[in-house]
């Protein structure tokens, strides 16, 4: 136990020191983790033990990451991406494989060349996606292309796992077939296997679409947060197990589950629950990659490994550039695509080990290749920085219209916190104006009903920072709080002001005093809940009493204006002394009547008089 805690402490401690430093140096968190790994690894301070086990365990971070990516991709969106996924992804994998395999075939037997070609065609989903997200490039068009390719690669792992054992030349190691222990799918005939796989995918779909909602609702109703977290984790882990059982990639399975749940109202809640686990696991995963760099080996084979790294990056880069050209990406995007994906991926560690145990690759060669991949992964964030420094900044000047486009695209997003009676009508108004708010509400039955009416409503407590984050507070323009609970609403405002200083705030206040408390926080856009309908009802009343409709309308407007004008004064008094405030408030109401009366007299008559004055004859 102590041993475990000690290891955990070292990992976390290294991350805590290295990541902020790396960020400060504008290197990105991935590089920070990798460096931390080298430092605490066997060739640095030698603080950690079984790296391979750690790496194996934390690979799960990749699975979680794909789940999160899936959550952000609605099925319709995924369908739209079918061409880039199959086209770009397919050609990248096939071409990279072909070129690498042919190159290897000059010195190695063809079986080994094929295995190496397949494995090295893959790039690092973990590093690339993390980098793109960190730099906010996920939703740009090259970002989407890159993602498509990575997705295809994850798919491609499955047939690769099937092909590699067929390439065996040496005797199979005893430890091969260490496959799933519960039930061995490879024992089944081919058609049965296919059925089992289809059933598993069907199960994910059915559970995601039909069963997940009642389950999540029941769990949300308990209001025990950690049970929701537990459910989310159980979901991801369960799917991974299922996928491993039927011989599919767990990352792919959870990705699918994510896509299925992307339409769910619990999406943001799931996102914010899984996110920290993913972050931690991936972080430790990156650290273990750094730690696994075998410097003795690298020193011994410095020339060979160095040459292979350069060769790998060059070949993959050329293939990527070629693919980007064929698919007509514009200049800037083409380079980003090329630089982002030119490295080996974490799947290589798995596949090379797999190839070794299946007697395809010899031990020594595997070690060398793993070092090559690890170094190329280490270089990946650096390459991306190089791209940004050299190419992006230069091209930006040449094509200034591109980035401006994207800003407009992401603009005008609104988070609506609280979707009670007030929020509902507000939401309807915004939607009618073509603005689709992201709605957060804490009442699960409410959420359910509204969902059925086609609102984009998500379950969760809006005063939770992680939920705000998941709802996109970072990119949003405006947050509107219509939370019924005044204290909660104040809390939300403080939270937003602290963490998203650029987010505009508009609030609903239940009464004048509540409004003052928002004014205390410096909120400018405050509407008193019942004020608007009181005035409108007042206007109706005047009309029913025989007032001219236009006059009734103007009285309402004037009243509102006057009331607004007295607000600062009342606020002043409220700030100074609450008791005087109360008496003054009553007096002010009397004043208001006085003011209103005057105002109505002035209104048009004054204009008329002015005209008369201009007529000397009268």
């Amino acid at each position, binding site marked *: 136990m102590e041993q475990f805690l000690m290891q955990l402490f070292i990992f976390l401690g290294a991350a805590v020191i290295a990541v902020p430093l790396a960020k400060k140096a504008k290197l990105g968190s991935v590089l920070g983790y990798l460096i931390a790994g080298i430092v605490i690894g066997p060739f640095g301070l030698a603080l950690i033990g079984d790296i391979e086990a750690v790496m194996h365990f934390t690979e799960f971070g990749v699975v979680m990451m794909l789940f999160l990516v899936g959550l952000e991709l609605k099925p319709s969106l995924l369908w739209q991406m079918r061409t880039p996924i199959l086209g770009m992804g397919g050609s990248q994998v096939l071409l990279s494989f072909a070129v690498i395999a042919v190159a290897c075939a000059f010195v190695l037997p063809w079986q080994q060349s094929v295995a190496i070609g397949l494995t090295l065609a893959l790039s690092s989903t973990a590093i690339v996606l993390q980098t793109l997200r960190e730099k906010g490039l996920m939703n740009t068009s090259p970002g989407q292309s890159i993602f498509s390719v990575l997705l295809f690669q994850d798919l491609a792992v499955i047939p690769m796992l099937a092909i590699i054992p067929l390439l065996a030349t040496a005797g199979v190691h005893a430890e091969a077939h260490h496959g799933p222990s519960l039930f061995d799918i490879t024992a089944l005939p081919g058609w049965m296997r296919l059925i089992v796989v289809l059933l598993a995918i069907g199960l994910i779909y059915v559970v995601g679409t039909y069963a997940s909602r009642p389950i999540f609702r029941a769990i949300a109703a308990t209001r025990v947060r950690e049970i929701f977290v537990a459910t989310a984790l159980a979901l991801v882990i369960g799917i991974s197990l299922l996928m491993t059982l039927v011989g599919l990639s767990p990352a792919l399975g959870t990705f699918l589950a994510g896509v299925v749940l992307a339409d769910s109202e619990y999406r943001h809640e799931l996102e914010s629950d899984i996110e920290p686990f993913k972050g931690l696991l991936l972080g430790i995963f990156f650290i273990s990659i750094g730690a696994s760099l075998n410097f003795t080996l690298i020193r011994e084979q410095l020339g060979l490994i160095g040459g292979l790294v350069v060769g790998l990056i060059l070949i993959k880069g050329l293939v990527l550039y070629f693919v980007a050209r064929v698919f007509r990406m514009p200049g800037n995007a083409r380079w980003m695509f090329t630089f982002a994906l030119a490295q080996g991926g974490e799947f290589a560690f798995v596949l090379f080990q797999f190839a070794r145990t299946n007697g395809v690759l010899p031990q020594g060669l595997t070690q060398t290749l793993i070092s090559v991949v690890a170094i190329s992964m280490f270089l990946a964030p650096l390459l991306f920085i190089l791209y940004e420094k050299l190419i992006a900044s230069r091209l930006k000047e040449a094509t200034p219209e591109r980035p401006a486009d994207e800003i407009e695209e992401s603009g005008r997003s609104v988070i609506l916190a609280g979707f009670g009676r007030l929020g509902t009508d507000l939401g309807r108004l915004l939607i009618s104006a073509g603005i689709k708010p992201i709605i957060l509400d804490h009442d699960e039955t409410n959420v359910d009903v509204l969902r059925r009416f086609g609102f984009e409503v998500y379950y969760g407590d809006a005063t939770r920072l992680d939920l705000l984050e998941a709802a996109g507070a970072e990119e949003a323009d405006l947050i509107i709080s219509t939370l019924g609970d005044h204290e909660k609403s104040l809390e939300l405002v403080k939270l937003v002001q602290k963490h998203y200083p650029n987010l505009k705030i508009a609030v609903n206040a239940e009464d004048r005093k509540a409004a003052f408390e928002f004014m205390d926080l410096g909120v400018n856009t405050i509407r008193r809940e019942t004020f608007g309908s009181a005035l409108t009802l007042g206007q109706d009343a005047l009309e029913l009493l025989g*007032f001219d*409709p236009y006059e009734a309308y103007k009285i309402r407007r004037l009243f509102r204006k006057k009331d607004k004008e007295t607000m600062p004064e009342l606020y002043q008094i409220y700030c100074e002394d609450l008791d005087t405030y109360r008496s003054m408030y009553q007096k002010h109401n009397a004043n208001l009547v006085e003011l209103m009366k005057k105002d109505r007299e002035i209104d048009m008559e004054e204009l008329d008089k002015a005209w008369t004055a201009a007529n000397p004859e009268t």
Partner: protein
Amino acid sequence: MKKILVLFAHPAFKRSKMNAALRAAIEDLEGVTFHDLYASYPDFLIDVPREQDLCESHDIIVFQHPFYWYSTPAILKEWMDLVLEHEWAYGSTGNALAGKISFQALTAGGDITNYRAGGMNMFTIRELTTPYRATANLCKIEWLPPFAVLGIHQGLSEEECIQRAEEYRRTLIALRDERLDLDRAKECEFLNQDLDAILKQV
């Protein structure tokens, strides 16, 4: 019997004397639809299709309003801006108003001596209302000179008010029953300058 639509605009009707008198004289006439724009659209959100339907279902359109700044109260401008759509009111296929008769019924503070060259308002009412006349022309509307009540600032006596209101009523009835000589009317400065002269004898 022709159908008459009176589009009425007065932002402070509660304090109106002249327009109130005019309104009272014609509001209940058979064949007359009285449509108070400020009351219908206090927030200026004019229902364009409804207004167009109203126009289409009437033969004569009267714009009744006090003269404000040598023009109309604001809502009438908004009405024209929105309702007189291209290819409805004007343009090659815009014939919805073609052949209809229209005129202004206006009340003004200044009197006839103010409204002439050298007078305090420099121009005649006829000159000052040319934008309205040009609008009628563009929309292929048969234009008539305004029905005018001038000199309100001098203070109209009670009898005078009643007399003007009665003239207004007679004018609308004559138009409704097609007893007004349109050609002769067009030559007048104001419709009500000599009403008997332009009434067709029966």
